[in-house]
């Protein structure tokens, strides 16, 4: 099990857990981040910038602070 921040570009994974306070949890949930959902990393911005993540039909950008709250299992 890894953190979302450790996923490589272009890799697919499934969300296994979301460890966040209520506020963040709700916001992530509304954007499609839920346990069991598949996602993939499209790209990362330069200078340790945000991650561009795709879940189903939604594309989202988020910083490491938030991405590290999401645990994933990388697809082999």
């Amino acid at each position, binding site marked *: 099990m890894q953190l979302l921040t450790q996923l490589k570009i272009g890799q697919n994974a499934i969300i296994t857990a979301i460890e966040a306070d*209520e*506020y*963040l949890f*709700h*916001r*992530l*949930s*509304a*954007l*499609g981040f*839920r346990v069991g959902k598949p996602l993939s990393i499209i*790209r990362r*911005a*330069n*200078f*340790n*910038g*945000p991650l*561009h993540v795709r*879940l*189903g*039909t*939604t*594309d*989202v*950008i*988020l*910083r490491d*602070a*938030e991405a590290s709250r999401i645990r994933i299992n990388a697809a082999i």
Partner: protein
Amino acid sequence: MKRIALLGMPNTGKSTLFNRISGASARVGNWPGITVDLMSAKILIGGHIAELIDLPGIYDLHGFSEDEQVVRHFLSSNAVDLVIVLLNSSQIDRQLSLVLQIKKLNIPSVLALNMADEAKQSGITIDTESLANALHIPVLSISAKYGDGLPKALQAATQIINQNQAATDPKVISELLQEDHQIEHEMENLIQHHVQIPTTFTNNTTDKIDKILLHKWLGLPIFFAAMFILFQFIFTVGKPLQDGLAWVFSLFRSSLLDPVFTSSPVWLSGLMLDGVYNGIATVAAFVPIIVLFFLVMSMVEDSGYLSRAAFLMDSLMAKMGLDGRGFVMMLMGFGCNVPALMGTRIMRSRPMRLLTMLVIPLSLCSARLQVFIFIITALFTVKHAPLVLFTLYVMSFLTMFLTAILFQGQYKNAEPFILELPPYRFPTLRQIVLRGWHEVKHFLVRASKFIMIGVVLVWALTNFPSNVPPASASTYAGQIGALFAPILDPLGINNQLAIALIFGFVAKEIVVGALAVIYGMQGDALMMHMATQIDWVQAMSFMLFTLIYTPCLSTIATLKSEAKSSTFMWLSITWSLGLAWVVSFVFYQSARWLGY
């Protein structure tokens, strides 16, 4: 009167739908239970006149952001006869939760699945009939952008309204607004049975464009180039419009107004013409450029490019307590501070918004640029001119970054940075115009008051006592200038320039005209005369001070209105005045000490 609320997640085309239904008749208003203003419009629906209210876009009825609280408070304080829930059809797999949350409140609702055209293109099919049966509410597929499906949707809405179901008591609603963990399972179930989503889903066009616009190394340069081109466009189109308006106004004055006032006492004609009419003309001079900026800003936002720019700039901005979107606003501020300040509305975190609004007025806007070009031309050689201007731009960025870094502790942002990257959408002309119209109307009403008062005041100060030459040292303005001499002398700013600064407080565009009145000559003659009156060190100090000291009255009015706080406005003014003084002081004294 029946009340209909329009609700939806962000980026679902809610404002497009609202504008389509309400046209230009929408107005901003106050509502019991909430402190934010909401847009509403009276619409004709099935023979009734009903009130349609545009609720803020929210992700979650149970969320903690300001917008989410506003919606909860609104529903708990105002009886609603119908809620139209708007979803993005392509993202129904996560957005259905919102309509399920509304259902729990027992408010009659209609589910409108927007962007049906996009869903179709991606191969997503939604069985609206069976979904409607499962949900027990009408489900309609629409495209607000093209108007498809709207008549049917409004028909469904009419039917519900005509059923005259008793609106749920708002007080009951606040009790019902409690967490429900079942919603997730419900949603999964509904999606499985009534929606088909192809397993591999990519929006080819958007992805292709993003490969270029979000390219690791090309992305940022392309962004700056795009901004530059947009600015060029605005000025190329706006300048002739401005000149045209100025011509119309002066023609009106010389042919109609001057003759009317020839027999009036000097003070009356002065007040009406140089004061009030001049004030109106000054406001009018703003309008073309500001309208264009609003339109461009709306386009950048609605097309989806704003989120991309935020992605590219976020890591740098985060170090200063701002976020990626703040950078785009700051850049817009280099054109005109006002639309940039209003653009910060998309930031839902108040501390972040305030910090960004504190920074934006320090940008070297186009009005300040006019002043600088004039002075640089008068006092610097062709060789040095570009360097001087570049230095001023650099100073602008430095003061913005400094302000952000110094105040980021004061305005700590608690909200997580998670932004949607919507697919690229090219807004229709109609969308752009309607959106621009509402924003501009708001701004004009607000700023005109301030500007009118300011211009009349400046006229009065420079023309009384009436037995002295206008704008000279013996007028009230001159006396005020003399009053500030102890503070301004160490900066190398003499009495005449001080009077120009007073004018500059109203609007930077009138500074050059003010210098003409002060020195009694115009154009090249004025430039040559000024070159004999002050040296380049004084000129630079004056420009640095003008860059930072205060923005124009329209900006201050907008700042106060957007922040909804006079305290914040005073903070901004005090900070920039103080910073301007320090910067000019350090420059002027160092330059003199070094022997210049």
